[in-house]
């Protein structure tokens, strides 16, 4: 059984924010709401590490546990979704979530908090799939189109992986064993491959 998960490879993430942009564009997320963001540890220091974070679609999701109106549900493929018609915007899920995934639009008067919005793993919500209503409330439903989340598919360095947890783990495992560890993960050879033949001598003769 597929269990959808995200995995971000901190060795590859270059903090380009392409995933954030892809998510915003794909789901037409309103201003002030960030379903996905890139977090950098030791920013500016050599060896800094970045990681792209959104809803982790927890197996035992704390947001589901604390929601007073039980607006959350988990799909068969392990995606945590919620019904915006039931959400009361109380913000309990925001306090419960260790990743800060739940977001609240504040477009109303006096900074009023709207209904919660979060990453849907590009799986829409409980409206009819791929309808205008679903898109307006929850964004794109790519899973129903046989696609994977836009953030991962758009990732230029393939740092962000998304899909069935087993498949994603296999991809990451083979990658980690092939690229080595420590200093080996740095440099030209790791990024672009090592030459098959020893480096050629520079042509002799006068310089033009």
């Amino acid at each position, binding site marked *: 059984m597929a269990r959808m998960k995200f995995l971000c490879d901190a060795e590859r993430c270059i903090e380009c924010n392409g995933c954030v942009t892809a998510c915003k564009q794909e789901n037409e997320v309103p201003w002030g709401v960030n379903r996905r963001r890139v977090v950098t540890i030791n920013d500016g220091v050599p060896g800094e590490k970045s990681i792209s974070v959104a809803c982790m679609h927890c197996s035992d999701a704390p947001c589901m546990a604390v929601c007073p109106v039980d607006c959350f549900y988990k799909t068969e493929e392990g995606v945590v979704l919620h019904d915006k018609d039931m959400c009361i915007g109380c913000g309990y899920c925001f306090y419960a979530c260790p990743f800060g995934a739940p977001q609240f639009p504040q477009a109303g008067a006096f900074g009023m908090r709207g209904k919660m919005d979060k990453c849907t793993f590009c799986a829409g919500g409980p409206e009819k799939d791929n309808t205008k209503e679903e898109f307006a409330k929850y964004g794109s439903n790519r899973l129903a*189109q046989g696609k994977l989340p836009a953030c991962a598919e758009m990732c230029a360095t393939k740092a962000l992986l998304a899909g069935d947890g087993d498949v994603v783990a296999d991809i990451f495992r*083979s990658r980690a064993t092939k690229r080595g560890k420590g200093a080996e993960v740095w440099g030209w050879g790791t990024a672009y491959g090592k030459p098959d033949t020893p480096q050629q001598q520079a042509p002799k003769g006068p310089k033009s």
Partner: protein
Amino acid sequence: MISARKLILSGAVLVALAGLAGCGEKEQVIAYQQGKYQGKPDTRPWENEPGASLYTTSKWTKGDKASWEAALRSRNQNQNEYTRAE
């Protein structure tokens, strides 16, 4: 002939009835039960017609979960450049 008093009385009754119509409002609050999602049921992704949207390359049999999963697994390999390069 209808007397003015009867006319006023019937008018008042009509106004009262119109006012009472507001009391016939349906219950709009969901009776919550702790720990049980009671929102709208969601359609499962494999119950959709494949190719219903633009630029879809994945193919599966409508209603067949296993074929949808297989389609996604093969699409997953696009994220694995080690297999793409070989």
